[in-house]
């Protein structure tokens, strides 16, 4: 029995995407973003401003001077880095719900999303692709469909995992088979409702490369690869484990060999530690908890 009508109905009560992050998303399409535009977006949101200062001062961004003001942060970090921080600060509100269909711990999906954003960022640098903030954001939001689908995956988990195990299906294909819709497709619907830029919506809905058009955009392939590498790294794994399809043509497309993947994982291992601070975006208490996680 398909649950599609039920799942789509639940989108009617979807809370709005945080306004500040949404306005920042629209700037991703612009070739040039002025500092004033960014200041205008964040200045009325004290929580995000505080986050920006805290993250700007984290080791991940490696600034030597301590930053005290928004303006100073903007000048020192540059607009691309700032866009990442603003979007991450806003998006955290969407990811703060538990997703028991996928993760046993409350922050599991957020941790995976942050890891994937960092991995996408790293891959973009390795492959000398431009559009850093877009890449980071696409990595961060690729699994947004899990926020809503979790409830239904949780209800039908036994059937889904049985399909994965007995038919050797990917977890996403098994979702589609059992529920009638998978987290990528649903994420695409959410992106539509939230007026995300088209390209971001496309990455979200195609990030498991289950349709031929996925191979038309490097950004889709890059986020797919980042996701896979993060799964291999471990640490942020959910109940779906590594049950996703590996497509060698993506490696050929980016001219990456197995040895390159190892090298990238090695680099990610060092970045990942420093990036833990981003988990603390969720507010003080969680921040402390996450900072001490192994």
């Amino acid at each position, binding site marked *: 029995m398909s649950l599609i009508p039920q799942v789509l109905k639940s989108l009617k009560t979807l809370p709005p995407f945080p306004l500040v992050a949404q306005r920042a998303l629209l700037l991703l399409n612009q070739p040039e973003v002025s500092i004033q535009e960014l200041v205008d977006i964040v200045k009325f949101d004290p929580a995000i401003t505080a986050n920006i200062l805290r993250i700007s001062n984290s080791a991940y961004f490696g600034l030597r001077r301590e930053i005290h003001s928004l303006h100073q942060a903007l000048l020192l970090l540059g607009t691309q880095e700032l866009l990442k921080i603003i979007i991450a600060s806003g998006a955290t509100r969407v990811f703060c719900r538990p997703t028991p269909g996928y993760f046993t711990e409350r922050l599991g999906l957020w941790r995976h999303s942050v890891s994937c954003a960092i991995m996408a960022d790293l891959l973009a640098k390795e492959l000398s692709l431009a559009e850093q903030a877009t890449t980071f954001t696409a990595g961060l939001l690729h699994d947004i469909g899990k926020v809503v689908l979790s409830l239904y995956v949780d209800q039908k988990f036994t059937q889904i995992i049985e399909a994965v195990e007995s038919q050797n299906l990917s977890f996403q294909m098994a979702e589609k088979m059992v529920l009638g819709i998978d987290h990528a497709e649903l994420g695409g619907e959410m992106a539509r409702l939230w007026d995300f830029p088209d390209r971001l919506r496309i990455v979200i809905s195609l990030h498991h490369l289950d349709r031929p058009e996925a191979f038309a955009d490097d950004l889709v392939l890059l986020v797919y690869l980042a996701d*896979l590498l993060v799964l291999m790294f471990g640490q942020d794994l959910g109940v779906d*484990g590594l049950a996703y399809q*590996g497509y060698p043509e993506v490696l050929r497309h980016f001219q990456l060999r197995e040895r390159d993947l190892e090298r990238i994982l*090695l680099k990610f291992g060092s970045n*990942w530690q420093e990036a833990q601070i981003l988990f603390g975006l969720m507010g003080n208490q969680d921040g402390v908890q996450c900072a001490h996680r192994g």
Partner: protein
Amino acid sequence: MQIVVGVADMKVSNQPEDVLVTHALGSCIGVAIYDPVSRVGGILHYMLPDSSLDPVKGQENPFMFADTGIPRLFRECYRLGAQKSRLLVKVAGGSQVLGNQEHFQIGRRNYAALRKIFLKNNVLIDQEDVGGNKARTLFLEIATGNVWVKIMGQNTKPL
């Protein structure tokens, strides 16, 4: 006390109240060794098969790689009184994404590297739970030498 072994990390102990745990192994491998007489044990969680990838990193953090990490795990346990002939060796992790056998094979290479090192040094694996596409968490209880694997989304089982 629960002691967490991070990624590219190792912990050894001879304190009976300790439980060593390493979380969410993907392609990485967790090796648990234990000497039931001296009650010394340790867990290594390494990420990659071979330090020739980056010898400097291998020196900075030997626990990153199988070839530099595994000897250190054994040596640290010997230092606390473990003896090679008595060691129980259990291995978990090395998962893979779905697809063909030639790509995205870090899990498989991680396991192959371990087998090679063990073969060369006459070490036998007593139990293992390796491969597939699951996320695993590995526990070692120092008081008893009991080892468990928890597969994410399933029950914990003894290994």
